[in-house]
């Protein structure tokens, strides 16, 4: 299927009140629309998943203590 960047698809997203509150909070923090946050989340998840598929681990590092914690991606 030929998919162009200009082809747009619409979907309805049902969120719980808590999920919507988090989405609104992130949108405010990131200075993005709620759609923008969802699109950013999709890009990040795809990027993380592509690394996990290659056998990489997704780690977060505390800048001060250098302590590392692993993020689990399903």
């Amino acid at each position, binding site marked *: 299927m030929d998919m*162009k*960047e*200009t082809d747009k698809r619409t979907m309805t997203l049902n969120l719980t009140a808590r999920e919507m509150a988090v989405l609104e909070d992130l949108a405010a*923090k*990131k*200075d*993005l*629309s709620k759609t*923008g946050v969802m*699109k*950013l989340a*999709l*890009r*990040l998840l*795809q*990027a993380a998943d*592509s690394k996990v598929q290659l056998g990489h681990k997704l780690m977060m590092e505390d800048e001060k203590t250098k302590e590392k914690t692993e993020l689990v991606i399903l």
Partner: protein
Amino acid sequence: MMTSNVYLQESSSGSYVLAKLYDEVSDKHLAMWNATWKPALEIHCKGRALVDSPEDYHWDWKWKANAWRPLLKYHFYSIMCRGELQGLMLANDTTTARLPEQAGKPLVYIEFVATAPWNRAEVQRPPRYRGVGSAFMAKAVQLSNEMGYSGRIGLHSLPEAERFYRDSCGMTAVQRDPGFLQQLMYFEMSEKQAETFCQKPRKS
């Protein structure tokens, strides 16, 4: 495939020439890179020490494109003029700003940007065309606006390009980044700087 018109300045005549900026790097562009751009750099670098070679000498655009094209966060761009490849850029839309006034907000990060060897004064005098870098920077700001990032962009500059980003693009030199082997300078363009950059007179 999306294209837009840009104008490059032909150094020999000073006149502006119509070029096309593509919102992709196609297999055709990669074949041109392999057939013309890469050999031109190799000829230029033959017999030179690595330290005297162009800083992007080792960039393998074919590898980059094949590895990263499937990911939504990457955006590839190319510029063609008179049937020849003139520039390539790869941007990433999931990076976060560092300038205090916009820290934590997303921006478009330019991973790699390069003009063809024949457009560089250190390879050919006079260079064939000027304006590839500015056209790409304007495109990155446009992408940032389309993503809802208000024109915010960032990049790590190779040493020779620092003056261009600081003086021509009006970006802020934030810090030398110890995460890079060469401690490259990280530059960022704020929303206000992006506005100023876009208002600069440019042939269009």
